[in-house]
């Protein structure tokens, strides 16, 4: 009963998100087709016309083969970078799975699959245009109401969208796909922090709301030309993506509470070990790989000096973070802790993200190195105050996201105060929005699985599907 209601709500939320343009509920598939057909036919016609109109684009580039080549390589890089950012979602999935128990593996993977898919759709339906409103602000500099991507397509003049008239670095589509891949990241960060105890349906609803509505708001402040866009510097999103996700995760964890048995009555912390170090390591390496797209693509063109500099600063900060976290854990915890070394790499990456294009390579080593220490201290400190974050998401993305933003005010081109204001504003907004969202969702649907389900694992509880069922005699 309740489950069905839940699903219906989920569908409803999605349907709203899609502004009525499409629905994902298969039961309504036929209706959906009908509903969609009109729009589709319209846009299809547009596509066909575009094909015929190709000459307009050709005309645009006539006699400018050099410019066309530049535009082509720029746009190609944005697309490839989008694919690399996509890989980060696999990275997140692996890290989260590896650092939690095997009985919750199916659930974690399912959440990650959902988030990527939902994120792309929600961003198309709403986020993209509300994050980059142009002049269509609802509250100037602070809030814009988006309109579905279809607008940008069906109605637009192709030359204006598909050539350098749109942007020297990419077409409208290149722009969209790169930004869309970023969007889901915020929810993925939350997913790790709330793992092993959150109800699937409510999580899906809350994550959808945050990705669809909250992420574009702070995004518009800086990248969309809003109130932070003048002096605040957040190159690829230490604050806008990572701190955003980290503080939303913090709110979620506070509402949700720690995993059973993590904090003992005697005040001791009982660690709950992750079940697969290879998965965690694969995840971090893939995140490192994908980050070349995340930061490198944020140059928003293939500009040779900048892209190559960004690759260098990104790699150097990650390396420094990995090294300092290793030694920090070795010294502070007696033995070199692989999970900390891995978190250290991520910390370095998050740390350099705000200033990857404006911080010198050796300064990036300092930024990443400090992030690597910060993450170790932060992970330990959060456990002290009973904030239970199985994968270290709050420390990696929240704390190091703040640090990275501020670091631009120290080592980069930014002003310390502006950077501080910006990162605090973004983190605070993310925290409050997520807090309200999770509280509301909790009030309506409940947020936490039963203790029995938590003990037995969410794989059985939510999915009836073990992740490693090989010794399950079944009939």
């Amino acid at each position, binding site marked *: 009963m309740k489950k069905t209601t839940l699903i219906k709500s989920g569908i409803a939320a999605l349907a709203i998100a899609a502004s009525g343009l499409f629905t994902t509920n298969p039961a309504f598939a036929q209706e959906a087709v009908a509903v969609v057909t009109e729009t589709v036919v319209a846009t299809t016609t547009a596509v066909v016309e575009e094909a015929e109109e190709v000459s307009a684009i050709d005309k645009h580039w006539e006699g400018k083969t050099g410019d066309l080549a530049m535009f082509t390589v720029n746009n190609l890089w944005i697309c490839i970078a989008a694919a690399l950012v996509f890989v980060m979602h696999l990275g997140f999935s692996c890290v989260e799975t590896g650092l939690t128990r095997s009985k919750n593996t199916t659930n974690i993977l399912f959440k990650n699959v959902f988030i990527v898919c939902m994120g792309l759709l929600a961003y198309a339906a709403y986020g993209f245009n509300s994050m980059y409103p142009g002049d269509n602000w609802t509250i100037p500099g602070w809030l814009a109401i988006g309109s579905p991507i279809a607008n940008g397509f069906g109605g637009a003049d192709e030359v204006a969208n598909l050539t350098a008239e749109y942007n020297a670095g990419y077409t409208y589509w290149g722009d969209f796909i790169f930004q869309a891949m970023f969007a889901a990241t915020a929810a993925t960060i939350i997913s790790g922090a709330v793992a092993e105890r959150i109800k699937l349906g409510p999580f899906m609803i809350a994550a959808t709301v945050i990705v669809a509505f909250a992420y574009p708001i702070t995004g518009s402040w800086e990248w969309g030309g809003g109130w932070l866009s003048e002096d605040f510097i957040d190159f690829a999103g230490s604050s806008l993506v990572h701190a955003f996700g980290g503080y939303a995760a913090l709110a979620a964890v506070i509402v949700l509470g720690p995993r059973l*048995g993590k904090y003992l009555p005697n005040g001791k912390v009982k660690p709950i070990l992750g079940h697969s170090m290879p998965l965690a390591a694969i995840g971090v390496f893939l995140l490192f790989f994908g980050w070349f797209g995340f930061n490198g693509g944020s140059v928003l063109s293939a500009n040779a000096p900048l892209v190559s500099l960004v690759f260098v600063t990104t790699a150097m900060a990650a390396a420094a973070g990995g090294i300092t976290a290793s030694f920090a854990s070795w010294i502070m915890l007696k033995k070199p802790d692989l999970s900390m070394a891995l978190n250290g790499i991520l910390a370095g990456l998050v740390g350099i993200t705000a200033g990857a294009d404006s911080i010198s390579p050796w300064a990036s080593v300092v930024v990443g190195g400090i992030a690597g220490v910060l993450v170790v201290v932060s992970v330990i400190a959060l456990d002290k105050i009973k904030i239970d974050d199985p994968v270290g998401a709050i420390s990696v993305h929240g704390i190091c996201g703040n640090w990275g933003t501020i670091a631009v005010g120290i080592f980069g081109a930014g002003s310390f105060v502006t950077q501080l204001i910006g990162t605090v504003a973004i983190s605070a907004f993310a925290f409050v929005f997520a807090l309200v969202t999770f509280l509301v969702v909790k009030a309506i649907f409940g947020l936490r699985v039963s203790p029995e389900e938590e*003990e037995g694992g969410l794989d*059985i509880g939510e999915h*009836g*599907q073990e992740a490693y069922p090989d*010794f*399950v*005699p*079944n*009939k």
Partner: protein
Amino acid sequence: MKKIEAIIKPFKLEEVKEALADLGIEGMTVSEVKGFGRQKGHTEIYRGSEYTVDFLPKIKIEVVVTDSVLESALSAIVKSAKTGKIGDGKVFVSPVDEAIRIRTDETGDKAI
């Protein structure tokens, strides 16, 4: 000398171990098993086909004790492993003729 075999719910292991340790029982052996009992399994669907998971994950504790502590060990186990819900498990007691500590060749009660 008796051997106690207790089949319990996995998350109760810690408590049972503590309860036994409190009695001064210093040795035990634990393994992962699957149990079939009154606590009927659950029916699941995988890729469209239904199946029953009959066997549920349990922990088996084996502990050999002297006759003198048998009773207290049994009640400690039963008490600490109980949730009152179906599937709590069972305890079996069986005779042991001899015990040897490999390291020292000690035998009998001293070896336990």
